[in-house]
């Protein structure tokens, strides 16, 4: 049987399934004293932190060290004690008393965690999971239940795999991770990438398929394709082995190409840049051989806080990225938020359809001061450099460009008026992600320095399909010929205006998509740093004439499936 999930860490692994669950087998002596159990849990977590740190995984060690403090947290222990005192005297059997206390511990930990998770802050949501996990550990110590760790190299099958449990698995015994829940950013996925083992997350039906008892089934994982195969057949295993060999061969060639610019077999240059969302991503992008930053999402500075970031704080962050990339281009995207991701200090009105509401550059009408401060910060960060590029999201009309330009002029004039050092000029671009902008490309191209196609939103708006809709997501394919024709119109418009066009959506990092885009005349592809090797490798295998022929055939296709079938 085969289940589909989301590939969260690459690789192929085959092995027996190991279910993470507390068991009565090998039961330890129950510890009925809450304080003693908490101290034991804290000590265990500290030991695990030391082990993980010795293995060079500092980030995981920090989580475990913080959890070691959580186990002895006075607020948590007082809340548990209060619940125990409020509960009528329980049964006299020690095991039952242990079970009752363990339930209280887990419940209080869960409600404490919910309290943390309710604070709008992604990082705190992860800490909330850590609190629940600490509660589960104290509860296990109280009842004497233990986690049966794998005794042979296995594939972990779980709802979610907390870092503290993963850390207990002896080195080398974890071959891969499959999770019923979780996302590509969940801790187990990051851990798997760190260990170099495959992970598939968000696999619906995984736990039911794995069964709860009996001999553990053999499982095969494909971390690229996001597939989990139970009891794979001999043919299936042979096929996976072949895929693995091919990928390893391609991967080693791709790695050798690192540091070289993107180009086709006949030497036509296609810029390969990285999308980044935090200052910390710059190092990873440089390591992967990015020729610059094609999309610097600046929202990280603005979300999850009560007030807008100060101009100085922004200058520091922007300058860090500009310094890291030196001569290489960095494209800043102006704050891109709307009614679906509200910021408390912007007080965006609730809208019945935020995707067609006030978002992106449209914020300039009501929240000009915030965007002006951002533009000043970018200009200041670029002082003495090659001139940063800035682009406005959600441009639909020529008036939007006028608005954007007027804001830039005002921001620069303010800096000059105050005698503050700034970049001599900013190169101004716009995102092409609204159909009207693709259709007006020739007129827009005369008014800006560059275009960057946001293929994700362009796909949603061209096809009128929400990419996160469970029933529409598969059909909302950026390779649909309608989307490609909008891209073609954009390229034609840019050519008439003598400006360059980049693509910074997921399509740019899709190996098939990158070939079609290069064939359509796109100059730069900007993607997640992890996609650069594969795209660089694919482009080198084709000549520009082959890519142009591919693009012509793709434009004439009737569906996204037909386009994909062209590259096989």
């Amino acid at each position, binding site marked *: 049987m085969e289940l589909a999930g989301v590939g969260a860490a690459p690789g192929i692994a085959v092995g027996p399934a190991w279910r993470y669950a507390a068991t009565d087998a090998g039961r330890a002596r129950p510890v009925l004293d809450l304080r003693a159990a908490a101290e034991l849990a804290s000590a265990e977590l500290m030991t695990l932190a030391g082990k993980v740190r010795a293995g060079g995984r500092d980030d995981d060690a920090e989580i475990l060290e913080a959890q070691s403090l959580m186990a002895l*947290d006075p607020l948590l222990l007082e809340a548990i004690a209060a619940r125990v005192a409020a509960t009528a005297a329980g049964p006299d059997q020690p095991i039952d008393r242990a079970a009752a206390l363990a339930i209280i511990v887990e419940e209080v930990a869960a409600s404490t965690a919910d309290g943390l998770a309710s*604070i709008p802050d992604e990082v705190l949501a992860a800490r909330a999971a850590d609190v629940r996990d600490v509660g589960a550990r104290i509860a296990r110590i109280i009842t004497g239940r233990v986690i049966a760790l794998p005794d042979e190299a296995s594939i972990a099958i779980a709802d979610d795999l907390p870092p503290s449990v993963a850390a207990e698995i002896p080195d080398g015994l974890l071959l891969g991770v499959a999770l019923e829940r979780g996302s590509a950013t969940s801790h187990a996925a990051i851990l798997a990438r760190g260990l170099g083992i495959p992970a598939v997350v968000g696999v619906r039906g995984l736990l039911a398929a794995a069964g709860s008892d009996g001999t553990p089934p053999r499982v095969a994982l494909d971390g690229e394709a996001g597939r989990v195969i139970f009891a794979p057949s001999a043919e299936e295993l042979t096929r996976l082995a072949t895929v693995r060999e091919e990928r390893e061969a391609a991967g080693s060639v791709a790695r050798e190409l690192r540091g070289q610019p993107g180009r086709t077999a006949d030497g036509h240059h296609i810029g390969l840049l990285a999308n980044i969302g935090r200052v910390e991503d710059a*190092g990873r992008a440089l390591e992967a051989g990015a020729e610059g930053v094609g999309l610097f999402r600046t929202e990280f500075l603005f979300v999850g806080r009560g007030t807008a970031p100060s101009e100085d704080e922004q200058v520091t962050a922007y300058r*860090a990225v500009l310094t890291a990339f030196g001569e290489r281009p960095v494209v800043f995207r102006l704050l891109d938020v709307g009614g679906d991701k509200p910021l408390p200090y912007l007080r965006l009105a609730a809208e019945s359809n935020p995707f067609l509401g006030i978002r992106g550059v449209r914020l300039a009408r009501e929240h000009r001061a915030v965007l002006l401060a951002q533009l000043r910060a970018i200009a200041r960060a670029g002082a003495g450099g090659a001139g940063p590029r800035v682009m406005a999201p959600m441009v639909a009309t020529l008036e939007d460009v006028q608005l954007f330009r007027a804001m830039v002029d005002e921001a620069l004039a303010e800096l000059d008026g105050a005698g503050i050092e700034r970049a001599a000029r900013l190169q101004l671009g716009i995102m092409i992600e609204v159909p009207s902008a693709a259709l007006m490309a020739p007129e827009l191209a005369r008014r800006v320095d560059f275009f960057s196609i946001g293929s994700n939103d362009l796909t949603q708006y061209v096809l009128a399909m929400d990419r996160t809709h469970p029933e529409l997501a598969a059909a909302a394919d950026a390779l649909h010929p309608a989307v490609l024709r909008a891209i073609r119109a954009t390229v034609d418009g840019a050519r008439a205006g003598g400006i360059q066009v980049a693509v910074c959506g997921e399509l740019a990092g899709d190996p098939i998509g990158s070939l079609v885009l290069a064939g359509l005349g796109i100059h730069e592809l900007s993607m997640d740093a992890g996609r650069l090797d594969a795209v660089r490798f694919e482009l080198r295998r084709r000549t520009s004439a082959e890519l142009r022929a591919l693009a012509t055939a793709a434009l004439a296709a009737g569906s996204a499936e037909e386009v994909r079938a062209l590259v096989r």
Partner: protein
Amino acid sequence: MHNPSGLHARPAAAFVRAACTFQSDIRVANLTTGSDPVTAKSIIGVLGLGVQRGHRIGLLIDGADEGPAAEALRALVEAGLGEGEAEAEPGVTRPS
């Protein structure tokens, strides 16, 4: 708070560990969000303040060793709670 990640994970742990070495009752509040004060000896409480870079925090310290506690915690926060230059990604400099 001027360290990059405010009072998250490791900086919070460093802060709480330091607070736990004093006998005094130490309470901390996020002045920027106007939170109620919590005991500085609780990592869950401190995380729950949601202190981010640029936020201001206030400390209420009462007890036998309140002087040294105030001095030590102020120095720790001003030193960036262990998050300094060395924490930047390779190749990324953090001009101050």
